[in-house]
């Protein structure tokens, strides 16, 4: 039973409200730089919008979803009232305050530095401090997840931690540690310059600090989705989790190997040497392992559901799946997008292939497909699944939910496939407009137009999502009962200590970060004569 519904609902509503705003900005950006829009007379507006879109979608939206979902997991999987509710609200209000503080300078054009910061470009200090507050708010959640698990362990000595909570806490630790990279960049490099204490900045070091955050943050975004794959989908479609052990191993692998790989974002950079580039490339290959294991386990779990429903034959069981169930639909769409996005990701992290697509529209297509597609469609599914338990009211219109999911999937494909294509043609990222009259750029015009149409399909789907949730607040009351997670085929009776606790893996995560980042950061920090004067953005 969820005791703190208001807390969870507040997180979800804020998350989806800011998502709606950022989605609208995204669709406008797609339109304005496509051949169907006219050139912006003031391109600076585009970068305000882009900064807001990235900051919300990268920092605020997924963090709030992970937090709200985390509180729901803690209360329902552990069957224990949340400990530290006041702190949880404090974290929530810190995020509200931080978001407001960050968005004002962005809207005024005083912080158009994009969510990736790009020093030596320096914007208003309020933008950076706002982002720091958002992260600090989320760290309260990390601490609460850990404390709640500890309280539960005391009451249940030696018992297997429910999978959902085990994964949730792993995700929170991953976030706590991966945020440190950007925090170091902000606190040591950017904020001192933004407030005028220092005048120069080493851009190379800043890029390495940011890469520490930039990749593992994606796995933090991914965690709620993977938790849904393992602990919600099989229950929702009437199946069982194929293997509880494999699920735990996957989450542990994410915790350990998602971290020390971020330098594959700096393959094209001059401030990192070949050795560390290769090490990070190899470790990035390793992070494909938990995803490959997950795809197997989830497909097997889905097959169990199909066979329990009377499915027969080698592939005939696929037809027996409950395709009208929104959760089934969301999972299938998510897997298709994860497949394409993952294949693209293998190209991005490749030591050799990266150079042909680095910083082109291919990359934008890639992470929209993975994050906006595979991950966010499961956020929708999580919200639909939890809503009746949060509101005490049923979501009646299942057909509307199906339409919304279909639109999101179609919109994402129509947006991102042409995006990948123009990337291969060499179209650079983050540009407010293109001169489609240039004969060398003209062939890209059609693809960009398709992408813009896809953007509008996504916008319609996103608004529909908000509408469904809002209408769900007013439908007739129902008793949804306790919120439950999937059972495994073989429910764990005892779990080896290593698969029931996080200490060993957190130690390994930190150790690998030190070995893979320590030397490059140290040499860059000690190098002389590489700092450059800050370039202030928005200063008149």
């Amino acid at each position: 039973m969820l005791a703190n519904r208001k807390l969870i609902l507040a997180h979800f509503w804020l998350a989806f409200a800011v998502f709606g705003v950022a989605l609208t900005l995204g669709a406008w950006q797609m339109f304005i730089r496509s051949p169907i829009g006219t050139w912006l007379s003031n391109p600076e507006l585009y970068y305000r919008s882009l900064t807001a879109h990235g900051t919300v979608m990268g920092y605020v939206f997924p963090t709030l979803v992970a937090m709200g979902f985390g509180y729901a997991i803690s209360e329902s999987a552990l069957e224990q009232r949340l400990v530290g509710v006041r702190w949880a609200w404090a974290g929530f209000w810190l995020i509200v305050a931080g978001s407001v503080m960050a968005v004002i300078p962005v809207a005024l054009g005083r912080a158009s530095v994009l969510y990736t910061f790009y020093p030596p470009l320096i914007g208003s200090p309020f933008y950076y401090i706002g982002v720091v507050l958002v992260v600090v708010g989320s760290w309260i959640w990390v601490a609460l997840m850990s404390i709640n698990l500890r309280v539960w362990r005391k009451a249940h000595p030696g018992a297997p931690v429910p999978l959902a909570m085990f994964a949730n806490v792993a995700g929170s630790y991953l976030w706590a540690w991966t945020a440190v990279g950007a925090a170091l960049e902000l606190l040591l490099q950017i904020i001192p310059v933004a407030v005028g204490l220092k005048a120069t900045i080493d851009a190379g070091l800043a890029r390495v600090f940011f890469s520490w955050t930039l990749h593992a943050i994606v796995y933090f975004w991914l965690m709620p989705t993977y938790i849904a794959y393992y602990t919600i989908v099989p229950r929702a479609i009437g199946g069982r989790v194929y293997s509880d052990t494999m699920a735990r191993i996957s989450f542990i692998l994410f915790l350990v190997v998602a971290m020390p790989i971020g330098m594959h974002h700096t393959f094209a950079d001059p401030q990192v040497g070949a050795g560390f580039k290769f090490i990070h490339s190899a470790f990035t290959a390793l992070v494909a392992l938990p995803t490959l294991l997950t795809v197997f386990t989830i497909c097997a779990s889905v097959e169990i559901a199909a066979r329990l429903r009377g499915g027969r034959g080698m592939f005939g069981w696929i037809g027996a799946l409950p395709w009208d169930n929104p959760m089934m639909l969301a999972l299938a769409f998510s897997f298709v997008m994860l497949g394409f996005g993952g294949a693209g990701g293998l190209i991005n992290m490749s030591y050799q292939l990266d150079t042909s697509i680095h910083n082109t529209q291919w990359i934008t297509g890639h992470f929209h497909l993975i994050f906006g597609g595979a991950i966010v469609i499961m956020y929708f599914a999580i919200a639909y699944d939890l809503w009746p338990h949060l509101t005490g009211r049923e979501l009646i219109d299942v057909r509307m939910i199906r339409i919304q999911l279909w639109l999101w999937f179609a919109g994402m494909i129509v947006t991102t496939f042409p995006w990948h294509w123009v990337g291969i043609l060499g179209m650079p990222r983050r540009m407010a407009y293109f001169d489609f009259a240039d004969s060398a750029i003209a062939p890209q015009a059609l693809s960009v137009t398709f992408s813009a149409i896809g953007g509008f399909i996504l916008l319609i789907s996103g608004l529909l999502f908000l509408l469904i949730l809002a209408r769900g607040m007013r439908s007739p009351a129902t008793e949804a009962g306790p919120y439950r997670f999937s059972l495994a085929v073989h429910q764990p009776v005892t779990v080896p200590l290593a698969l029931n606790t996080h200490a060993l893996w957190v130690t390994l995560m930190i150790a690998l970060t030190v070995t893979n980042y320590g030397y490059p950061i140290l040499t860059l920090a000690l190098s002389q004569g590489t700092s450059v004067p800050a370039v202030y953005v928005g200063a008149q």
Partner: protein
Amino acid sequence: MSAEDTHGSAGVAARVERRWATIAVIIIVVMALLAAFAGIHRATMPQPRVETTDPSRIHLSGEFVEANLGSVLEANGVTVRAIGQQYSFTPACILVPVDTPITLRATSADVVHGILIQGTNVNTMLVPGYISEQLMRFARIGDYLMPCQEFCSFGHEGMWGKVRVIDKADFAARAKDGGRLSCVGQ
């Protein structure tokens, strides 16, 4: 099939799972080995060496002073030196010969920029304080677009350079007195 039936098949389940995990590990090891092999054997890799240059002094002395920017014929091929600054490249149009090994050496004078030459694999970041080096070779005569590929503030969308690839003999004739060449006067 019920959950009870599967209980006896726990061994089968574990075996299938192990097999899949093994396949997954093999895929990953092969990928890493392929990358290592191509890197060592064919020397295809991202920029290996870290070189620095003081960004506050590049206009005054050293490799990237204005008079030294452009293409120059050297013993081991052609070297192109360029800088990026808000919101242009210098030279704005790089002149190189076809079918010749070319070394591009570039850096930034202010913020982070990038060089991408469309239709090729030439793609590197320009980070102030550090020198980017790329080996390149053009198989086709013609003009190539060279946009800045990294956000460098409000004028980023206008930062487009060009590479002009010309005939070898033509280039040699223009380069014989040792000057720094660009498309200017071409």
